[in-house]
């Protein structure tokens, strides 16, 4: 499986259980890359809106997708498109993480995103 992430914690310390593709970019940029890969036949393995921290609060997002490709998975596409719409909806409101651009806060956002996706990686690895 492949982890698409902009979380610096994975850049520094990739999880050996998956291929990590780190990208610099926004939360939304990560969603768009994942959407494009779904169009190329990858399957979504974790929910793109993991966590109750809102898309205009945290700058970090990590999403698991399948390594293998097949025909277009419509369920995956539906979930990622809905997630992009939800992200855009939140972006109309004041974007908080610009203001929250303090090292301690960024570290917390990074830790939460990391903690949540680690659980998904563990679930996926046990199969």
């Amino acid at each position, binding site marked *: 499986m492949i982890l698409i992430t902009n979380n610096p914690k994975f850049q520094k310390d990739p999880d050996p259980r998956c291929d990590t593709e780190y990208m610099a970019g926004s939360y939304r940029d990560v969603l768009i890359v994942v959407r494009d890969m779904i169009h190329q036949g990858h399957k979504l393995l974790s929910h793109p809106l993991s966590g109750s921290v809102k898309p205009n*609060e945290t700058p970090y997002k990590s999403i698991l997708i399948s390594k293998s490709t097949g025909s277009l998975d419509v369920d995956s596409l539906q979930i990622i498109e809905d997630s992009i719409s939800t992200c855009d909806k939140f972006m109309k409101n004041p974007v908080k993480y610009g203001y929250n651009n303090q090292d301690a806060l960024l570290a917390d956002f990074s830790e939460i995103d990391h903690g949540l996706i680690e659980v998904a990686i563990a679930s996926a690895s046990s199969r």
Partner: protein
Amino acid sequence: MKLELGNIFIHDIQFDRLSRVEKGIIYINEEELKAHLLEDENIRSVSCDIAKPGESVRIMPVKDVIEPRVKVEGEGGVFPGILSKVDTVGSGRTNVLKGAAVVTTGKIVGFQEGIVDMSGPGADYTPFSKLNNLVVICEPIEGLKQHAHEKALRFAGLKAATYLGQLAKDLEADEVESFETLSLIEGIRQYPDLPRVAYVQMLQTQGLLHDTYVYGVDMKQSLTTMLYPTELMDGAIISGNCVSACDKNTTYHHLNNPVVRDLYAKHGKELNFVGMIITNENVYLADKERSSDWSAKLAEFLGVDGVIISQEGFGNPDTDLIMNCKKIEAKGIKTVIITDEYAGRDGASQSLADADASADAVVTGGNANMVVNLPPMEKVIGHVKVADTIAGGFDGSLRPDGSIVVELQAITGATNELGFNRLSAR
């Protein structure tokens, strides 16, 4: 399984030399309670405060709210698998300090969570403004990681509530309520002509700071399962969920689950309340598929005509909600879902991140994006500076005069997805 709740009505709470409950007043020996909580080596300091209805007091950031209860008859003790042994609870009698709560506050991460105003317009949005609250403020030891900090606070709240609950062990209740769920076969025979209804409760289980525990088990590790609804009333489910104040279920919500209460109230009259199914909201999509398959399978096995499904949280759980709804409807069982909305500040955007045509009966707890203006309070318990960095807050949320402009999502319990709200559109 039958449980009696012995309610002891509380109208005041005070510090005193001897901890006790007398004539509806809780007296607390603060030093004794603090010493009890400081037994946790991860807690550096504890202070306590009191917040009563109508006072000019703001509590923030609120982590959990817990109602003090104590088992007086029957098997087990409150918060089984956590503070008591894992014995099955939900039968016998439990005394409740009704009208009181323990509120924990602590800054686990930078952007935390949760406002409770005891008066003013903000008080209308949270049920906890109507309670006599003992606020427990814990500071962790230096360098404690977030997950350990959350656990320390979670246990401090439960221990403080249990300490207060113990004061009610030998008291005579002002009111006794009774709740009973029969075995499946007895239940069918009891009300053969009424529609059979079950409750499917979805629990927040995404991981770090987004967890719920059932008999001490981390619910994300569990398959979908069943409980007698009275088990909730003895603390079988507790909250370890720290994110999204407006729509997280505190431990108080679990103890007083309004869906359970209302279904019991209609049991034998309009419907036959069969029992409840609990399921999780994991991040891994295959976990979602499995858990929702099991919700549908158990609902079918119970032979129900309808279910009520409640959600907890935003985004990821929307998908679990729709999967549960769709799969249960596909079994020929009617569903009603309870959720809340992130519909934008103008309320015009799509409310949920997922949808299906079978989700055609929906109850909403409100729009969490709605902006509210909370006037300054004379006293703030906790950390006022978190206002700018609180969920639902933004740069400039905290005004120079101490007022706060925030989205409703900053207020603890404001859009609760069990329907435990004070305001309605009716």
